[in-house]
């Protein structure tokens, strides 16, 4: 009997408590920078696409929502001919970001991707590409890579040794 009255009183007291509801569209929660939301393709400091079309993200994707086709320009620089993410399948797991060797594919703190038409959730490369460098500013994959793709000559890269002259005996 007493416990019934007590629980009624405790519920009544809740009238003066702070409300826990966050009124979402007007008030937005803080999202940490590493929040896994919408997927973007970033560019390197030279404003070139970072993606080299290695297919690792498509392989890592557990729901197979990424499809792409690699191509190569006259300098030998690889890039994606098309890059398509079906966000109606994407589960925002971030495996593609982990798999990416060039830090091109990144997940950003934005999740508001509601659409009336399901087809609009399929993002093409031009929808995915952004102008910035994302979470890793200053990183340029082709500066580190051992290949000459028009960015730098072979052996000119950061922390890269000169190529070994195989015609010589000297080390």
């Amino acid at each position: 009997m007493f416990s019934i009255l007590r629980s009624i009183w405790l519920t009544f007291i809740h009238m003066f408590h702070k409300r826990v509801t966050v009124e979402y569209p007007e008030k937005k929660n803080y999202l940490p920078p590493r929040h896994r939301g919408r997927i973007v393709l970033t560019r390197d400091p030279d404003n070139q696409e970072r993606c080299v079309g290695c297919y690792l993200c498509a392989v890592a994707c557990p729901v197979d929502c990424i499809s792409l086709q690699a191509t190569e320009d006259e300098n030998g620089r690889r890039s994606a001919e098309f890059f398509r993410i079906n966000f109606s399948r994407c589960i925002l797991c971030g495996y593609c970001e982990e798999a990416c060797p060039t830090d091109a594919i990144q997940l950003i703190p934005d999740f508001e991707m509601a659409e009336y038409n399901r087809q609009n959730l399929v993002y093409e490369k031009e929808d995915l590409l952004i102008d910035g460098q994302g979470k890793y500013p200053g990183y340029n994959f082709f500066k580190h890579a051992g290949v000459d793709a028009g960015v730098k000559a072979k052996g000119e890269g950061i922390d890269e040794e000169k190529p070994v002259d195989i015609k010589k005996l000297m080390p």
Partner: protein
Amino acid sequence: MIDILLHIALVIGIMLGLVMIAAGLIWLERRTLALWQDRYGPNRTGLFGTLQVVADMIKIFFKEDWIPPFADKKIFVVAPAILMISILLSFAVVPFTPLIGVVNLNIGLLFFLGMSSFGAYSIVLAGWSSNNKYSLIGAVRAASQMISYEVFMGLSLMGVVMLSGSFNMRDIVLAQQGRWFFIPQFLGFIIFFIAGIAETRRLPFDIPEAESELVAGYHSEYSGMKFGMFFVGEYLGITLISAMTTTLFLGGWLGPAFLPPIFWFLIKMFAFILFFILLRASLPRPRSDQLMALGWKVLFPLSMLNVLVTGALVLYFKL
């Protein structure tokens, strides 16, 4: 002639007002429940979400009104109407103010008891005609619960009848001048209120429709406006029990003169309605047999004792 027309207008006005209050209670309950659960509740449509009622009504009117092929069609259609009719008829004897009221019946209280016992049919027939095992279990529970609690409801009111010496609701209110009946009849007041919760099948005594066990109990198969009638009927039931508690135990329209009588009535009634909602927010649902045990082993002897003691005191002091 003009008198009759005025009276008809008054009756229609009261009915519309009650249905409006009942519909508004849907919004009020959602808001206040949210308040007690640290939420906001519907606050998007209109000012503080008050237009939510309109939205709900539009939705419920345009829903498919489906009658299951395995149901007993006639009874299935009639059942929700019985609920609405019996509750709205009960309001006929409630005196809102000295002027506002449908009839001045000298057996008003008995009429109320008769109509409230009639509401049980609606639930039982709805459950039976749905031809569904969950509905049937809900109906069986509702029948046992409502029949048992009618007994204590009637008995708990006998103290009021003895003190005022009348079954007429107006006389009962007038007999409370200077001393509201909830002071001498505190036990009766508590028993009547508990029985009222059980009669309206409100939480915590919503055993007939217990969602976690019986889908939605007796109205599992109902949809569209037929469900709407059950829904509004429940809120009308709350309003009825609150109005009756106000008239019988809290002096009806009586109150200090700085407010008109109707305001006093509405203030007291809404206080009880809010208490109904608070109960819903705070108490868990007992088991069916616990409810029966509470009724027959605690409330029944207590209400008998109340009748006995009140009768003895009335005889000793007045005669």
